[in-house]
């Protein structure tokens, strides 16, 4: 694509532009950007830097998997609304259309003094600017009795792909009138409405195939995202199937036994057919290895997503601790574009415009019953701060809910094109 500049009169926009950044001359040849993690944040950042710098910046994207399955819409796969192949994306066009060097490997080390990244395969990759978007890992010991070695018995399905497939297969194999237990995570976690959209989708499947089955949620949180909307939907569509135990009822005191397939909720032991354990989360481990985390997450500056620990390292998406934005694919994508603009400015002297962020999360409750919540954000000295937001209302009519679902499908097509090209 090409921009016709005949209208470029610079009408007052210059005022909005931050002071011209210092161009950081690369010591050798073209400036180098390395991105760790080819998900919603990382792939977007790599794509925008490569696309907009038109070859002036060397971009390397490190991502172990060849097919990235989006967590967004993975619940719809569980509900039978999407195929697994609908949510799989490859890196071909990032490489071919934008000249990004895609390396399928794990990053296992970051040397911030030498400015290099070490790969599991043995190589090292030098950088001028490093962008980390490794998503999440789970906090060890968060749910007593569970660790990642138990994920084949009690899947989390909070990283999409084989885990999601396993969970779907387990739901399909539930005996008549069986019990599905979800151990929900404490805040903050990836995709605040995610567990509850999942419950809706599981209920949708069970209502059709196994209507006497039950769903029990053990939840350490008092409240959750879009709660009124979900609870209304559960009552209207899945009356009696879903029960949630909040902290008042011991939902914060859960132990599991993956071998026995039991869940102990505040002393009362349930034998379950499927147990979906979604433990407490933290930044993807490489962020900690790089030394940019403080506690579970990596604090960043809101203006450009640079790490508070190192101005040449940026952290995007779920791994970052930025302020008010929820951990979502939409947020990661939004942050990536702010970061890409800043990184490009720092490396090539291109104009840097003020940060602006937004997010909208759609959820599906049942067929053609979509709801959404969204907000816009700005960068302040201290954090990414919420400006304004909205949420779907209870009691909306069917036509609006259907339009909202259709809109979410449009969004999915849009964002995945924006991430993967």
């Amino acid at each position: 694509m090409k921009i016709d500049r005949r209208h470029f009169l610079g009408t007052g926009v210059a005022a909005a532009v931050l002071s011209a950044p210092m161009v950081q001359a690369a010591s050798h040849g073209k400036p180098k950007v390395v991105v760790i993690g080819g998900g919603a944040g990382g792939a977007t950042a790599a794509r925008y830097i490569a696309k907009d710098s038109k070859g002036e910046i060397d971009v390397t994207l490190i991502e172990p998997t060849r097919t990235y399955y989006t967590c967004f819409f993975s619940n719809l796969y569980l509900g039978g609304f999407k195929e697994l192949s609908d949510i799989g994306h490859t890196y071909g066009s990032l490489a071919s259309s934008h000249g990004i060097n895609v390396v399928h490997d794990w990053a296992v080390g970051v040397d911030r003094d030498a400015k290099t990244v070490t790969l599991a395969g043995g190589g090292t990759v030098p950088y001028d600017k490093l962008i980390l978007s490794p998503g999440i890992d789970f906090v060890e010991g968060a749910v007593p009795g569970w660790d990642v070695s138990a994920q084949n018995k009690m899947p989390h399905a909070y990283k999409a792909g084989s885990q999601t497939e396993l969970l779907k297969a387990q739901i399909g194999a539930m005996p008549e009138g069986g019990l599905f237990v979800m151990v929900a995570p404490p805040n903050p976690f990836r995709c605040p409405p995610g567990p509850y959209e999942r419950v809706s989708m599981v209920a949708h499947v069970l209502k059709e195939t196994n209507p006497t089955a039950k769903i029990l949620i053990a939840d350490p949180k008092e409240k959750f995202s879009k709660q009124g909307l979900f609870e209304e939907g559960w009552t209207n569509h899945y009356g009696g199937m879903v029960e949630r135990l909040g902290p008042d009822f011991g939902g914060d005191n859960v132990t599991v036994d993956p071998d026995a397939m039991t869940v102990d909720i505040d002393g009362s032991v349930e034998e379950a057919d499927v147990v979906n354990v979604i433990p407490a989360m933290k930044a993807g481990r490489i962020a900690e290895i790089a030394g940019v985390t403080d506690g579970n997450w990596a604090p960043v500056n809101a203006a450009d997503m640079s790490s508070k620990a190192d101005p040449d390292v940026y952290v995007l998406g779920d791994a970052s601790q930025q302020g008010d934005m929820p951990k979502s694919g939409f947020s990661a994508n939004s942050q990536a574009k702010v970061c890409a603009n800043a990184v490009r400015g720092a490396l090539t002297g291109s104009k840097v415009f003020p940060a602006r962020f937004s997010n909208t999360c759609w959820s599906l409750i049942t067929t053609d019953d979509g709801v959404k919540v969204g907000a816009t954000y700005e960068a302040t000295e201290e954090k990414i701060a919420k400006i304004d937001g909205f949420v779907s209302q209870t009691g909306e009519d069917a036509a609006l809910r259907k339009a909202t679902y259709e809109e979410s499908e449009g969004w999915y097509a849009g964002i995945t094109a924006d991430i993967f090209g």
Partner: protein
Amino acid sequence: MRAVIRSIAPALPSRGGKFLGEKFAFALAFFVLLAMPGTADDLGDGKRGAALFAKCKGCHQVGKGAENGVGPHLNELFGRRAGSVAGFKYSKAFQRAGSKGLEWHADTLGTFIANPRSLVPGTRMSFRGYDDPIDQADLLAYLRTFSVSPADIPEADPTARGIDHDVDPAILAIAGDPEYGAYLSSECTTCHQAEDSDAGIPSIVLWPEEVFVIAMHAYKDNARAHPVMNMIAGRLGDEEIAALAAYFATLEH
């Protein structure tokens, strides 16, 4: 729904071409064709619809205290299943349509009003239909006002109404900076595809700049309802809207 919007499209420019030169009329019809499925009410003029309802009044009541007459009352019509009003004796045709799952939404109502027998063969309703798509949309806009719960925000069709909104000529005259627009556009492309697909979410590339600016100001001023767009446009300044318009108008594939 889509069918209703399509059929309305060619007639629109004559209605609201305030800022629209003749040369844009064709382009506008084209954009409306690309419109996402929306609720038909935002296309229609409910006041006109109230007058059109005169033809229906002999058989149908609507509004506070409406009761069944020759035909069922039309309160809470949108979203309800055909043939489902308690206490009304429906024709076999309607009972069948209802049990097969016919529900009243903008699209099905549009088809029904256009030609009742085509949608429900055998209906007792002896009304030939409003063939004019504008009449259909206006009537639906009127009926919709008796169906919406207060919490229900009818979301605007994204492209149909832009030209109806008043924007200060000084704002329209701002020449946008496409480079700034290119940066700002990245916020749009999270949902709107840079290619011109319009599935679920409409295309926004290659719009005439003026139409784009008017549409964005309509969202900004809440003259058109759509929560995401009201929020996004709400914090765009006049310069920024101009910059986006300049950028999207000149994109080449």
